[in-house]
């Protein structure tokens, strides 16, 4: 299946871009050592004007390139962590509801719906405003608005798989229900969730940027959203301050969507076959 995915050009582009992002994020302390918020030069050096600061400096004289690199780290970390939390929570709730059935299923699905009717971003805003901004509250806040999709998906897969003939056969053979769930149903129920994980990551990166833009990100970390927000005050006089992190953000989201598109396409074809 991996080979099939990699045969698609959008997977190449998206995956390649993401690989670069992850590499940059992982190597941030090597690529830009020291505190990325340190004041290192004259304020407002334009991009490509000074070899020490290839992308220029912001209003306080902080290196934009260092900010971009460490911002990639924050974006990637928040995106992946939020998606992981959302999928873990969603898969747990969804499979529990699917296997249990009856009133437990009903109750759990009403809770899922309660979360779904509140726009995810509003939920995140409220959560961060109440608990105060830090990297972990931001991760939880984003996951809170994203876990319902995986939950519904896993539940529906479990519900249909549980009635499948091979499950019935296993039951007749005397397999215990726990074993059936873990060995037969889950491995087939989870792949579609992995397929939508890419869009969850992309959504999480965007939500994190939006929260930071509104001043609800961690004030002690550089993030792209915060860089865009800080640059906004100088939009007319130094547009590069917002445009450079903005472009990085747009590129990341496009990359994640391309990869997600490829995965979805391959999975859909497999299902048809």
């Amino acid at each position, binding site marked *: 299946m991996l080979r099939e995915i990699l045969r698609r050009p959008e997977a190449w582009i998206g995956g390649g871009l993401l690989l670069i992002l992850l590499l940059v994020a992982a190597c941030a302390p090597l690529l830009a050592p020291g505190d990325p918020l340190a004041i290192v030069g004259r304020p407002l050096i334009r991009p490509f004007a000074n070899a020490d600061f290839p992308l220029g400096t912001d209003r306080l004289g902080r290196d934009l390139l260092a900010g971009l690199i460490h911002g990639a780290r924050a974006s990637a970390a928040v995106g992946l962590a939020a998606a992981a939390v959302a999928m873990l929570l969603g898969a747990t709730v969804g499979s529990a509801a699917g296997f249990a059935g009856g009133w437990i299923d009903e109750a759990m699905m009403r809770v899922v719906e309660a979360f779904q009717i509140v726009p995810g971003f509003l939920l995140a805003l409220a959560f961060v*405003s109440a608990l105060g901004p830090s990297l972990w509250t931001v991760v939880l806040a984003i996951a809170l608005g994203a876990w319902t999709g995986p939950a519904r998906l896993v539940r529906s897969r479990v519900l249909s798989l549980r009635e499948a003939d091979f499950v019935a056969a296993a039951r007749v053979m005397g397999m215990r229900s726990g074993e059936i769930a873990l060995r037969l149903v889950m491995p087939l129920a989870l792949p579609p969730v992995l397929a939508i994980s890419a869009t969850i990551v992309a959504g999480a990166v965007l939500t994190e940027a939006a929260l930071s833009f509104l001043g609800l990100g961690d004030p002690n970390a550089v993030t792209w959203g915060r860089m865009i927000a800080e640059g906004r005050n100088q939009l007319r006089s130094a547009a590069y301050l917002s445009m450079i992190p903005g472009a990085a953000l747009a590129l990341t989201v496009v990359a994640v969507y391309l990869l997600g598109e490829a995965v979805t396409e391959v999975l859909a074809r497999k299902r048809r076959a």
Partner: protein
Amino acid sequence: MSFLISRRGLIGVAAGLLASTALPRLALAAGGRLVVAADSEPRQLNPAIVASNGVFFIASKIVEPLAEASFEAGGLRPLLATSWEGSEDGLAVTFRLREGVLWHDGKPFTSADVAFSALEVWKPLQNIGRSLFANLEDVETPDDQTAVFRFSKPTPLQLVANALPVVSAVLPKHVYEGTEIAANPANAALIGTGPFVWGEHKPGEYYLLRRNAAYWAPDQPKIDELVYRVLPDRAAAANSLEAGEIQLAAFSAVPLTDLERVSEVPGLEVVTKGYEALTYQLTVEINHRNAHLKHLKVRQAIAHAIDRKFVLDAIFLGYAAEATGPVPANDPTFYTPEVELYPHDVEKARALLDEAGYPAGADGTRFKLRLLPAPYFNETRQFGDYLRQALAAVGIDAVIVANDSAGHQKAVYTDHEFDLAVAPTVFRADPAISTTILVRSGVPAGTPFSNQGGYENPELDALIDEALITLDSGKRVDLYKRFQKLVTEDLPLINVADWSFTSVASDRLRGLASNPRWAVSNWADLEQEA
């Protein structure tokens, strides 16, 4: 085809709707209407209850104080009072009031209105008046044009006079008497004696004020309609000015970073005058309950770690001055440069921290602090970012805690959940009005912009109390000079920059910045050329 027509019809309806919510259309001669940017809509508009610049910006055009600040010697221009005189013992101040002044509803203005405002509003309800008029016992009104303020303790005339523009907005007794003053409908639809009459307020859109044809000063005001367009987005103010939709943006509504560009736009001018009596100071508030910050050497090290010149250049873009102490240098009366200064010196800061018993750890860090920058201004937030880095350079790890306005006030002024905070404190023409409260001990928790850092210095407290009852102006000034010296020596807080506002205005306006509180004065002399 029918689709097109219906769509056009729809557009017509939409345009009609837009027009009905937009500003009222009136045929006025050019120069008749002045549109001003307003960046906030205060919930409470009564300047006699809430003495703040956000309220004055609109309300001072309608409700007038007894006197206004002035660039002339003496610093005051008579408005509703024509003269004032203190008694020898400092227990009485006699005001002569202007004759022939009418309230906007046609009733005459008399000393009864002044007595009512002082005793029923300024003293019990007003944020500044509550402390300033704490010793006010009675206001006698021997005749309609005389009001005698009686104090239970000697009260310096200099202080009363300096405070007049801020604390003395006079309300009509016949409107407020016998009602619950804080809930009176006239707090929204103001009734005053000023050059402009309340028109209407459309929330989120505009305030409309009209010319008062019966204003007491002949030939004033010179503007027919004053409109405050609500533009909370600062970038929008600059764009609206360039488009000619508004003629004035005061209180730095145009971001500092845009000023250079805007100043080159033909027809617009950048004005930095007119805010001399409303100087803000960028101040680092210190929580003296913190075990590290208790040490004077630590506070001195922090003061030495701050590069004031960098702050002026990078954050204020030159539109500010270095602060030397708790009184801004542009104050003509009280300021003294003979104070303890803390030039930027990283080595010295490090040495002071070493001496205080905080050697740098393996990673260069000595200790950790919470830093809460006030969110009210871009400048306070940016200075918070700067201070974090400046402290990192000397080995103090400051962690920024970001809050919204309400959260920040609760954290700093009520819960004391901070180590360092960045505040925009205001100097209002006299240190006794809103400056000494920043360091005086015994201020109850929850009082915004007061000493909530738990700082206690009996010597400073005694000096503050002595100055409050010192009648001789010269002696008072000397006491406050000593106050500045003591504050800079012991650093209950650190004053970083004296910072003033800018206005951007159409160059057709005449009478801009005509007094040191211009943006919050009554604008009776403001003119717009055709």
